[in-house]
């Protein structure tokens, strides 16, 4: 009799986006193993199948729980229940076949089939079957291992070790495989194989070199700054708070890099040959450390220290300049230092440092890879599997994490089941009014604060310049930066957003608006007012002034943060405990703190042109900030109850670091270099029309003095000055982008087609399994005594 098994399929279009197949390169190795191991196991299950049938048909008739008609009844139930019923009442034979299917034995896991078969056998088979099947199992595991060993033999030693490390076997198995694979090789030392003497030296050198490289890398990674404090923090607070401290460490590394480059190429050469010292300002008071004027303004810290000279150790034979009169004449037959032009060094150091930072930011892993994350919508399964943070070890934090997950899941389920509640019209209108009011309040406060900063700066400029009111402007800016986010938090609390992630995004956006507007006003003050008419304000050296202002801003920001951390969070906790009598500590506001870090970094990047040692100040500030924030978090805060999508947030923060912060600073610096006239009396670019001009002059000097570098100046003329070349390069990049986007589209289409193909194969599988089950039941009904 023909069973018309009507398996209704749930035709679900998959909602999530698919990565392009190029992204699965590491997985291709596994896939090859899947295919290979599937091929190797395919020989065995057929014999297993037939034996099972004959073996089990007689012995396990009593275990047959289902009659044929009962099976037909299941089709009317819904898919989920039917699936579960089917699985529970499948016979031992079917289960055995299923557990040896290639999809269940995928990958080099000689262990899973063993456990799978053991556990599938346990509830239903007798001892007769288990002993009957132990032999084929052992033969199969060694067959897979033999496959692995032969694969490893075909590779080079280092490749094989890397592959072996990445296979999911236990350590004992791996050691056995390694011994089998390299049986021909003397295990004690791979180098003492029978290689001829003349090659031994080369092998030894390459081995020592790779050893050194490995040591350097391991030193760099074990130089993991702040490893144990971060472990304590992640154990207690989870990945969210940890991401703030990781971001802080990344910024520290950026600043270290900037400081090293500036120090090597700019500060050190000039410090070794200092300019003539101005005698009347060398009494040093402590306040100058805060304001940056006086003694510090003459130091290597600021722009004014640098001269427009060229450092040489000898002078040319025909020059009669007075400043090089005491140097010996250059002897062409003896090595002498290439003339080191400070203005050119200044320009090119800053430019190259910015360029390298741009490349690092764009190529950073969290930036590139997670643009896909930003695109994908709700990914429930992925969330469930990845949601548990294994680093959390403290008992209360684990419980808190479970609560967080439970809340999140319940919210998600209620969202799915009920959909949008039919709110009444008045309620919706009310909520809309509240939102509009909150937004208007925030925007008005931002505009007011920007105007306040603007008027204050104008007042400072028009009044007696720059002596008495130095610290007022930075203090006002820092106070605004501190207080207004509190107002924004209040607004979001009043608005009571439904989804916590929307809440976080809204508060980030408002904070960002505030900081962008304030920095914009300040940039206008520096570049639009001070730089343009320096003489009117009585300034000899406007770059020094701008550098000092940035220095003061940075320090004031730090001072206010210290005050807020110690007083604010501490007092808040006391207030909660004593007045409100609740044991609830405040939550560490990750978004706000990260934006503060980004703000500080923007100031550093803006200021590096005017104060080359500003990254050093930022390094010290970040160091102190780490320890302060760590102790504050551990003492005063508790873990947040809201879930924090760590990777999405890290993407967002790196994006914010790049887009408004770095690009804004880069645009300001380029604008300054390109268009603004440097001051005539100080700095390396005095008496030039623009700072960029010095680059051109240097190139001309190179042409005239050293014909060997002629090609460099020719390349410069050809590349930078020629618009056709830039046009061609842009066109080329646009074509590359277009081709890549077409390839991605094509791959997406292939992925969706393969998806449908897999679904069809799944339908085939279900069809075969139910038919197999039906056949078995029918044959056991027909022949009960065999």
């Amino acid at each position, binding site marked *: 009799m023909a069973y018309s098994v009507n398996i209704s399929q749930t035709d679900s279009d998959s909602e999530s986006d698919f990565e392009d197949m190029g992204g699965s390169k590491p997985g291709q190795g596994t896939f090859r193993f899947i295919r290979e191991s599937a091929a190797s196991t395919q020989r065995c299950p057929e014999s297993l199948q037939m034996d099972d049938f004959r073996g089990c048909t007689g012995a396990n008739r009593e275990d047959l729980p289902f009659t044929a008609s009962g099976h037909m009844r299941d089709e009317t139930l819904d898919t989920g229940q039917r699936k579960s019923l089917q699985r529970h009442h499948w016979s031992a034979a079917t289960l055995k076949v299923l557990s040896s299917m290639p999809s269940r034995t995928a990958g080099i896991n000689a262990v899973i089939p063993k456990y799978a078969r053991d556990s599938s056998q346990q509830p239903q088979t007798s001892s007769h079957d288990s002993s009957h099947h132990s032999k084929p199992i052992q033969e199969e595991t060694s067959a897979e291992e033999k496959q692995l060993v032969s694969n490893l033999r075909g590779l080079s030693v280092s490749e094989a070790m890397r592959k072996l490390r990445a296979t*999911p076997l236990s350590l004992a198995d791996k050691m056995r495989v390694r011994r089998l694979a390299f049986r021909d090789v003397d295990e004690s030392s791979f180098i003492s194989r029978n290689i001829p003497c003349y090659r031994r030296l080369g092998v030894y050198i390459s081995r020592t070199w790779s050893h050194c490289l490995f040591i350097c890398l*391991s030193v760099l990674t074990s130089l993991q700054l702040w490893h144990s404090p971060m472990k304590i923090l992640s154990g207690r607070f989870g990945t969210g708070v940890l991401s703030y401290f990781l971001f802080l460490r990344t910024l520290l590394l950026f600043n270290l890099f900037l400081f090293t480059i500036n120090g090597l190429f700019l500060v050190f050469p000039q410090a070794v040959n200092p300019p003539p010292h101005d005698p009347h300002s060398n009494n040093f008071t402590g306040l100058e450390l805060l304001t940056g004027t006086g003694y510090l303004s003459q130091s290597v810290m600021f722009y004014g220290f640098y001269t427009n000279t060229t450092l040489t150790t000898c002078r040319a034979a025909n020059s009669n300049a007075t400043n090089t009169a005491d140097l010996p004449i250059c002897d062409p037959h003896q090595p002498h230092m290439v003339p080191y032009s400070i203005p050119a060094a200044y320009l090119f150091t800053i430019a190259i440092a910015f360029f390298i930072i741009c490349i690092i930011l764009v190529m950073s892993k969290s930036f590139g890879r997670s643009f896909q994350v930003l695109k994908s919508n709700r990914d429930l399964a*992925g969330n469930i599997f990845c*949601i*548990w943070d294994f680093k959390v070890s403290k008992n209360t934090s684990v419980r808190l994490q479970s609560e967080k997950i439970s809340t999140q*899941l319940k919210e998600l389920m209620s969202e799915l089941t009920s959909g949008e509640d039919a709110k009444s019209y008045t309620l919706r209108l009310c909520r809309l009014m509240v939102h509009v009011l909150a937004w208007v309040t925030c925007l008005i406060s931002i505009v007011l604060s920007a105007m306040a900063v603007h008027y204050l700066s104008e007042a400072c400029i028009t009044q007696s310049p720059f002596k008495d009111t130095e610290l007022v402007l930075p203090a006002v800016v820092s106070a605004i930066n501190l207080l207004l986010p509190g107002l924004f938090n209040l607004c979001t609390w009043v608005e009571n957003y439904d989804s916590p992630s929307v809440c976080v995004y809204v508060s980030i956006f408002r904070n960002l608006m505030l900081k962008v507007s304030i920095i914009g006003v300040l940039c206008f003050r520096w570049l639009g007012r001070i730089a343009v008419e320096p003489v009117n304000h009585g300034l000899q050296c406007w770059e020094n002034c701008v550098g000092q202002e940035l220095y003061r801003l940075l320090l004031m920001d730090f001072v206010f943060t210290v005050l807020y951390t110690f007083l604010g969070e501490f007092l808040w906790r006391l207030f909660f405990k004593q007045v409100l009598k609740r044991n609830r500590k405040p939550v560490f506001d990750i978004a706000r703190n990260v934006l503060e870090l980004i703000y500080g970094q923007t100031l550093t990047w803006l200021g590096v042109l005017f104060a080359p040692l500003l990254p050093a100040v930022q390094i010290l500030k970040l160091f102190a900030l780490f320890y302060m924030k760590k102790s504050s978090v551990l003492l005063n805060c508790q873990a947040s109850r809201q879930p924090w999508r760590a*990777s999405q947030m890290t993407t967002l923060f790196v994006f914010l670091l790049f887009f408004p912060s770095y690009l804004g600073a880069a645009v300001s610096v380029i604008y300054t270099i390109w268009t603004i006239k440097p001051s005539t009396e100080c700095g390396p670019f005095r008496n030039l029309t623009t700072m960029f001009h010095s680059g051109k002059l240097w190139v001309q000097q190179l042409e005239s003095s050293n014909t060997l570098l002629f090609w460099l100046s020719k390349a410069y003329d050809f590349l930078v000055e020629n618009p056709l070349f830039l046009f061609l390069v842009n066109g080329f990049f646009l074509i590359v982008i277009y081709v890549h986007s077409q390839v991605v589209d094509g791959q997406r289409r292939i992925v969706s087609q393969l998806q449908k193909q897999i679904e069809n194969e799944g339908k085939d599988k279900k069809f075969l399994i139910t038919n197999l089950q039906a056949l078995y039941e029918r044959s056991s009904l027909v022949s009960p005594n065999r």
Partner: protein
Amino acid sequence: MGTTASQLGKDMLSEYQELTFLTKQEILLAHKRFTELLTKDEKDLPNNRVSMERILTLPELKSNPFRKRICNVFSTSEYKDGGLTFEDFLDLLSAFSDSATLEIKSHYAFRIFDFDDDGTLDCGDLEKLVNCLTGETDDTRLTPEEMRQLINNILEESDIDKDGTVNLSEFQHVISRSPDFVSSFKIVL
């Protein structure tokens, strides 16, 4: 200083370094923490196996809801009691280390979540997984309807061949789409 069994030989150390994702310092630290779990007379025995209860006294594993599954997955004992030798312990740390590849992590995560060890994640496994995630108190657990709907949604998203279970390839496919996994599947001593 201790007997020879409680110190690692140099070639064993380099072999472990080659076959796992751990650095030398991590292996030595693991050895130190492991020998702290042994009693005085056990320290002389080679290749001894520490019972699961003692392993679970480690602070990194003590409160983890998956601790028993982790011990069972990495244990190579014939009695399936979850006891770990030092090499099993290194396997554990290697899979949870910083430099382990995504495939290794997803492979072991799959085995940890496969509560009944049958090679796939079916509804029972997913239900136990969600219960482990949401904790043990009654007010954090999901109601049966919520659980059923959640499992249906998970299967809808991840079961590509629609057989009602999530096998290893489907699991790895789902994992590869979320970048949170590598950073959350980490245990550091």
